[in-house]
């Protein structure tokens, strides 16, 4: 991160996005909610990063922090967010407007509520073209039609004159993607883009996002709770827990050699289609931490089967694994001597803890 160019010039060599110790805290009547609490990572051009975590892990707040989409009132933001070598962490909404659309765009979970129900599809796609790219009405309308074809909506010219309620959920999500793509962003955020859709349509939308990313050499940040969704559609995965990044690795490395017991537990709690019916699931006991009073040491320690005294009191730093691109935050990672010892001990004692069983 040292060779980053001076502010203002476009840095073509370095990473597209670089976060250093980003914190987003909210003031509430209960106290300070540490929704994102010191996250650092970088993302290269054209790559797809998956951010995975349970609800309340901070994954959505992190992506909104990068986009600058959080309310200014009651929000405390710290740390550095560099986009194309330029610091954007301290920009206000007005300044961010130059970045939204052309540089960064976002697709939300619910295509039903993110579109304006009173406006024709065509106008909704043409709007960013006119505002951000200064196109005229006719030109924007034409481009909108092409965008609809790009997202594989049939009869694009007729669809432009339809309202959102005339389209199915999958189609509406395609329209959302078309709007996000309109100004050719370099970074696209997709926040649970397929959670509201059926499996067959989900697969179509994920394929579409992937194709568009490759065609446009765009970077993608895919935020989801579903490890299955990120497995086939990302280059790298970042696992979040309790507002922290607890593991990050290239997708294949993560699935082959996960280090963090939380990632492993998350993986094991998913019912696998290849397991015989009535296979006992390995649930994670307990609940995600309260982010007003997070645990002292490792935030996963209270739910971790392999936790020891040190985990309760000392917070593990993010360290590098054998693979230099793989990092994790755990004192006794999967595969360590202590892990195996604890595992052997667990195998002897019958499982009683709330979740494990």
């Amino acid at each position, binding site marked *: 991160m040292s060779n980053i160019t001076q502010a203002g010039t476009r840095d073509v060599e370095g990473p597209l996005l670089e976060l250093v110790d980003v914190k987003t805290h909210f003031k509430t009547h209960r106290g300070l909610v540490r929704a994102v609490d010191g996250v650092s990572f970088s993302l290269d051009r054209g790559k797809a990063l998956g951010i995975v975590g349970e609800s309340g892990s901070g994954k959505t707040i992190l992506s909104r922090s990068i986009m600058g989409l959080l309310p200014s009132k009651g929000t405390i933001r710290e740390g550095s967010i560099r986009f194309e070598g330029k610091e954007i962490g301290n920009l206000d909404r007005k300044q961010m407007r130059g970045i939204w659309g052309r540089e960064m765009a976002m697709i939300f979970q619910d295509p039903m509520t993110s579109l304006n129900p009173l406006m024709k599809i065509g106008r909704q796609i043409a709007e960013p073209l006119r505002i951000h790219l200064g196109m005229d009405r006719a030109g924007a309308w034409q481009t909108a039609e092409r965008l609809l074809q790009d997202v594989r909506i049939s009869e694009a010219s007729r669809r432009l004159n339809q309202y959102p309620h005339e389209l199915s959920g999958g189609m509406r999500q395609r329209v959302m993607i078309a709007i996000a793509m309109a100004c050719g962003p370099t970074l696209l955020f997709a926040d649970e883009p397929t959670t509201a859709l059926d499996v067959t349509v*989900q697969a*179509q939308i994920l394929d579409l996002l992937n194709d568009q990313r490759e065609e446009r050499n765009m970077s993608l940040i895919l935020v989801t*709770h*579903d*490890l299955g969704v990120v497995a086939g559609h990302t280059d790298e995965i970042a696992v979040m827990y309790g507002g922290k990044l607890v593991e990050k690795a290239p997708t294949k490395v993560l699935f082959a050699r996960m280090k963090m017991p939380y990632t492993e537990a*998350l993986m094991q709690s998913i*019912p*696998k289609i290849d397991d015989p019916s009535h296979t*006992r699931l390995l649930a994670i006991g307990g609940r995600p931490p309260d982010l007003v009073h997070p645990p002292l040491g490792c935030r996963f320690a209270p739910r971790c089967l392999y936790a020891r005294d040190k985990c309760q009191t000392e917070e593990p730093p993010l360290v590098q694994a054998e693979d230099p691109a793989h990092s994790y935050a755990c004192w006794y990672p999967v595969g360590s001597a202590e892990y195996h010892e604890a595992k052997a001990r667990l195998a002897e004692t019958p499982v009683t803890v709330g*979740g494990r069983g």
Partner: protein
Amino acid sequence: MAGTGKAHLRNGEALLRVEDLVVQFPVGRTGLVVNAVSGISLDVLKGETLGLVGESGCGKSTTGRAIMQLPRPNSGSVQFEGKELTAMAGDEMREARTRMQMIFQDPVSSLNPRRKVRDIVMEPLTIWDRGTKADRSKLVDRVLEEVGIDPQRASESQPHQFSGGQCQRISIARSLVLDPSLIICDEPVSALDVSVQAQVLNLLEDLKARYGLTMIFIAHDLAVVKNISDRVAVMYLGKICEVARSDDLYHEPAHHYTNVLLQSIPVPDPDVAVQRRAIEGEPPSPVLPPSGCRFHTRCPAAAARCSAEEPQLREIGDGHFVACHYPVHGGEAPVTVRSSGTAA
């Protein structure tokens, strides 16, 4: 899929037997109807868990509700514990409903936000005036403990003070206190995080064993359905495509729609996931469903016959039934039933 037919119904004592169930909803005053469920037959044996899977709009939830007679089906028969529910009314119907309970998708909104959790769980007992007050208290405390909720806390707290997973446990407790024989779970874990989902699924398995429950488990997630079900019925646009024992269905899907569904599941394994490609299109409208096999418009193997003639459910393996003219396979060799279907 498209199947009608009752080849898959078993002889003998079924706890629940549904035949030719039809549910239609009018579309405003247009005279058109939404064909939510179009002639479905099902049976569930005592102690069995039947999974109902399909995409949204396939009629799986409507089927679950029509079994409860909420709303009543347009036609068809629902026999529960040997009695015909569609002919029942008034007190008899209310009494019968105590024997079947429902668990819904959104645990938070299915609990009254203003009441104490313990009172919510107690209410069915109070309404039916079961036992003495002390008996009821004891029962409620026991059930709450079984689902992993502290009764003391439940008597002091309201639903919003519990997490989503805990609220689902509370819903489960409420459904258990009347000692039902059938529980219909409508997407009970879809709103929960994976880690919590596993807790609730395990809990349902435990309770099923302890109470000898029979369950209908409705969900869109095939992996979840496979995990919990003994037998699975796949639905598409108001019809049944395929019925089989859970493991058989996933090993050897015979209907092309089942195959497509299985192929669409995102697999948490990067090596498998990248080879797959989604199918085109979305389910057609249930107002004007396609002729013949309702899946023919999206089916990779559709032929002329599929749009003309509706396939009937037929047996292609032990307890494995499919409604398809040209199934993916039917036992040993791939069956290409070009002539009239001769299968059992």
